[in-house]
């Protein structure tokens, strides 16, 4: 893991170390204040180590992410097409469940099932209009031969 000792990473290690030690030190300081009779410091005494623990958590996670990236492992949450950034104002294109009438399979593969063709036309229209909703489907274009 040579990459973890690049200047940027050394800076991050130092930052994590300083923040953690600082948080623990502040917790200790609050403990001493609490021992001196400042009762509100008991609350802060417990809060500061939690912040320090959070720093350690972030630090460990960054290292973990870096190692995953270095070994070429796929990220835990692969980017999906529908999670891509959406242009402002563009319609929502999340995959919605679409109710279609289904029929028991018989007699298809002949290529002249009108219902199947209508459905394929519907699917093709949806594919050609990625921003559209199923309810926007105008129906079969009449000019097209049946």
């Amino acid at each position, binding site marked *: 893991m040579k990459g973890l000792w690049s200047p940027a990473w050394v800076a991050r290690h130092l930052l994590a170390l300083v923040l953690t030690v600082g948080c623990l030190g502040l917790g200790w300081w609050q403990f001493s204040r609490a021992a001196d009779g400042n009762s509100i410091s008991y609350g802060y005494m417990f809060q500061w180590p939690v912040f320090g623990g*959070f720093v350690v958590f972030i630090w460990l996670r960054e290292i973990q992410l870096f190692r995953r990236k270095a070994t070429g492992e796929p990220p835990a949450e692969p980017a999906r097409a529908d*999670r891509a950034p959406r*242009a402002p104002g563009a319609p929502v294109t999340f995959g919605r469940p679409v109710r279609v009438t289904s029929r028991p399979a018989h007699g298809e593969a002949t290529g002249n099932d009108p219902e199947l063709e209508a459905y394929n036309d519907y699917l093709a229209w949806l594919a050609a209009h990625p921003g559209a909703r199923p309810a926007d489907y105008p129906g079969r274009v009449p000019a097209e031969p049946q």
Partner: protein
Amino acid sequence: MQGALTRYRTIAWIVGVVLILLVVIGMPLKYLGDNPVVVETVGPFHGFLYMVYLVATFDLARRVHWPFSRMVLVMLSGTIPFLSFWAERKVTKNWVPSAAPEPALSK
């Protein structure tokens, strides 16, 4: 993603307001007026709220794949009175994709 953004914005606003209470009202009362009651009640409360803020910011940063430095910057901006509101606006407008508050579900 929108849920994480909403959580972040909510807690950022709360932490910002409580911080201002603490700095603008509590600290003058304690150090000028010698009346520490606001600091004593709001202070620890703000500490716990800031923890929630950190977690919400971390969650948002993870979901929108911020660079590490930006996450740290946003986390630290929550500790600065008044600047926290500007940071929240900046995050919502520029640093989160498709941050339209209401998606155009139907026309």
